[in-house]
C-alpha cells in the first residue's frame, strides 16, 4: 500500500479483483445496512433543519463508505476520537438512532445535556465514541494519549481518530502524529479527504502530493485509499489496526472521497464547488458502489434495498418522535458538570438564576440562527 497511489478493492463492475474480502454475508449486509441508515439519518437531519425543527446539521452524503469501512475494522473495546461528520461510525457500532437524535435536538436525554451544538455526539457505549469538539484537530493528540494508556497497561486495544483534509493543517495533526510515532502508540489516523474544508479546496490546503504522504514527516506508514470503497477502507484500516495491536506503531490513512453536499446546513456549496465536480462524483456514489459488489455476490437486488430502506425509515421515524417529544434540559444543567463538585460561586449563580426566574419569570429564547 502506498502514500500516493490509490488503493481500490471494488472494481467498477462490482468485482474485487482477487482480493480476499474475508467477511461473512451477515457482516457485509451489516455494512450495507449501515450505509443506508447513515444516509437516512443524514437526510432526515437535513430535512429537520430545513423545516426549523433542529438548528443545524452537517451533511454526510458521499463519505459513508469511509466511515463504515473504518468502523468495521474496530472492536467494541477500541476507542474512537471522531469528528462531526462521523455519524456512520456510531451507527455501525450500534449507537441507537434515538440517542443521536437526542443530541440533534439538544434535549434532556441528550448525553451532552443540550450543551453542545447538534452533531457533537458523545457516547461511552457500545463503543467509546469520545465527545466531539468543534475546534479542529484537538482530538488527535488526545487519541495518542489514550493509546499511551492502553500500551502502558498492556492492553491490545487501539485508538482511532478521524479528521478532514482541513484538519491536516491543524496543530493537533502535527503534534499528534509526531508524538504517536516517537512513542510507537497504537493509534490510527484516518484523514477523510473529502476535497473541501468548507470552501477551501485541497490546493489551498496543502502543496503536498497527497495527504497520506505527510506520514513521511513523522516516520510512519502512509496509505492512500479509495474512500468510496467500503472494502478498500476496511482493508487499510485492518492492516493499520493490526500493526497497532502488535506494537508496531501508528499509521496515517487518507481516504479519498467527496462531500456530495454543503459543508453544513448553513453553507451554499454552489458558491464555490464547480458543478462538474458534483456531477462527476454523483456517479461514484459509495452506496451504489457497494450495491454493485453485493449484487455480484448475489446478496443484493432492489428488494434488498427497499427492505433496508424501510427498516431505516421506520427506525428513524420512531427516533425523531422520541427525541422531538423530549423536553429541554432543566436549567440546573447549566451549572452542573463544570467540575465534579459544584463550587460555591457556581452554586450561587445557579441559585440567583432560579431566584430571578421565580421573581421575574423565565428568560425567553432568542431567534438567533446558526449561520454556518
Amino acid at each position, binding site marked *: 500500500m502506498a502514500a500516493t497511489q490509490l488503493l481500490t478493492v471494488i472494481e467498477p463492475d462490482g468485482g474485487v479483483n482477487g482480493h480476499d474480502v474475508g467477511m461473512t454475508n451477515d457482516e457485509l449486509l451489516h455494512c450495507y445496512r449501515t450505509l443506508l441508515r447513515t444516509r437516512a439519518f443524514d437526510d432526515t437531519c437535513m430535512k429537520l433543519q430545513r423545516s426549523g425543527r433542529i*438548528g*443545524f446539521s452537517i451533511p454526510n452524503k458521499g463519505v459513508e463508505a469511509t466511515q463504515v469501512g473504518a468502523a468495521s475494522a474496530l472492536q467494541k473495546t477500541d476507542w474512537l476520537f471522531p469528528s462531526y461528520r462521523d455519524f456512520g461510525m456510531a451507527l455501525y457500532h450500534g449507537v441507537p438512532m434515538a440517542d443521536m437524535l437526542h443530541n440533534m435536538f*439538544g*434535549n434532556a436525554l441528550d448525553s451532552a445535556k*443540550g*450543551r*453542545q*451544538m447538534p452533531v*457533537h455526539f458523545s457516547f461511552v457505549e457500545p463503543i467509546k465514541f469520545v465527545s466531539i*469538539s*468543534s*475546534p*479542529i*484537530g484537538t482530538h488527535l493528540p488526545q487519541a495518542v494519549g489514550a493509546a499511551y494508556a492502553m500500551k502502558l497497561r498492556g492492553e491490545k486495544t487501539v485508538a482511532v481518530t478521524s479528521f478532514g483534509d*482541513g*484538519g491536516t*493543517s*491543524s*496543530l493537533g495533526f502535527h503534534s499528534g502524529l509526531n508524538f504517536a510515532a516517537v512513542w510507537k502508540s497504537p493509534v490510527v489516523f484516518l484523514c477523510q479527504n473529502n476535497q473541501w*474544508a*468548507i*470552501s*477551501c479546496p485541497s490546493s*489551498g*490546503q*496543502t502543496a503536498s502530493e497527497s495527504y497520506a504522504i505527510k506520514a513521511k514527516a513523522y516516520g510512519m506508514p502512509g496509505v492512500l485509499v479509495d474512500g468510496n470503497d467500503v472494502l478498500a477502507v476496511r482493508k487499510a484500516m485492518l492492516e493499520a489496526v493490526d500493526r497497532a495491536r502488535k506494537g508496531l506503531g501508528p499509521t496515517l490513512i487518507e481516504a479519498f472521497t467527496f462531500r456530495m453536499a454543503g459543508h453544513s446546513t*448553513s*453553507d451554499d456549496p454552489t*458558491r*464555490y464547488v464547480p458543478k462538474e465536480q458534483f456531477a462527476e462524483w454523483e456517479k461514484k456514489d459509495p452506496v451504489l458502489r457497494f450495491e454493485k459488489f453485493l449484487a455480484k455476490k448475489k446478496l443484493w437486488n432492489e428488494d434488498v434495498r427497499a427492505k433496508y430502506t424501510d427498516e431505516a425509515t421506520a427506525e428513524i421515524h420512531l427516533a425523531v418522535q422520541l427525541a422531538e417529544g423530549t423536553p*429541554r*434540559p432543566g*436549567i440546573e*444543567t*447549566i*451549572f452542573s458538570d*463544570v467540575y465534579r463538585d459544584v463550587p460555591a*460561586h*457556581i452554586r450561587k*449563580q*445557579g441559585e440567583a*438564576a432560579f431566584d*430571578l426566574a421565580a*421573581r*421575574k*419569570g*423565565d*428568560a*425567553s*429564547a*432568542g431567534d*438567533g*440562527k*446558526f*449561520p*454556518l
Partner: protein
Amino acid sequence: MATLTLLQAVNDALKTAMRDDPSVVVFGEDVGPKGGVFLATEGLTKEFGANRCFDTPLSEDGIIGTGIGMALNGLKPVCEIQFQDFIFPAFDQIVSEAAKFRYRSGGQYTCPMVIRTPYGGGIRGGLYHSQSGEAYFCHTPGLKVVIPSTPHDAKGLLLASIDDPDPVLFLEPKALYRQVKGEVPEGKYKVDLSTLRTVREGRNVTVFCYGAMVPVCERAAVQAAEKGIETLIVDLRTLLPLDEEGVIEAAKQTGRVVVVHEAPRFCGFGGEISAIIAENAIEYMEAPIARVTGFDTPFPNTLEHHYMPDERRVLDAIEHVHNY
C-alpha cells in the same frame, strides 16, 4: 449616508481601507470566494484580487503568524478568525509575539495589524461558537481590544484599527451583525480608539457595557425609566486601552454602578471596571458594584438564553443598586 447593518458596515470599512491603501490585505479561512461564513468579506476578492483577499489553510497559528510577518514587512494585514472560539491556536502568536514585538525590539520591529473575529452568543452555537474572550486579551499589554456596538462605530473603529500603529483585536458582536441597522457615512472616517460612548444619559444608575450587551442594556433602561430610574449607559467600545477617566467620571455621576458582559464573571473584564472604581471612586459609591455576566460555566446550547444576560437580569441589577 446609507443605512447599513453592522455586518455591512464591516464590509464597507474593509473595502474603504483596501481602496485607500494598497498595502491592506485581508485573509483567513473562507474569506475569499465564499466571502466569509458571515459574508463580512463578500466581494473583496473580486474587487481587489486574490493577492489581497484570500483563503488560508486551516491554521489560526499560521494566519496570525504570517500576518505578523506581513506587518513587520510593511503590509497592513487584516486577519479574520472565523469564530473567536477558534483563536486559541493562535494565542501564542498573539500574546507572545504580536503584543511584544515593539517592546522586545526596542521599537525596531512593529506589528500594525488587525485581527477581526466574531464573538458572543445568541446564535445557538453552543460551547464553541458563542464565547466572549475579551478578558484573555485585555490582560495582554501591547494589544488593543476594540468592540463596536453600532454600524457607525463598526466602520469608524475598524478604519481606526487598520490605521493604528499597533496590533488590534477587533471583536465583532455576531448577534448584532444583522440585528442592528444605522446610518453610516460614506468613505473614510475614524472613531477614536480609547474614548467611551455615552449611549444614554441618566442620573440614578450607571451601566457599563459593550458589544452585543448594549442594546440589551438600552432595553433594560427603558423599562427602568418606566419605574422612575434614570440610567446612564456607557458603551466602552475600546476595552484596551480603556478610557479610565471616562469610566471613573461616569461612575461618580450616579454613585451606583452595574457592569454587564456576556463572558463568564470570574476574572472577566467586568472585574477590572469594578476594581478601577473601587480604587478611584469608592467614596462616591452608594451601593455595591453589581456585575451581570455570563455564568462561570462553559456556554450551553439549548439554554443559551438563560446563560446570556438579558433585560430581566440587567433591570434586576439596576433596581438592586438603585434601591440599596
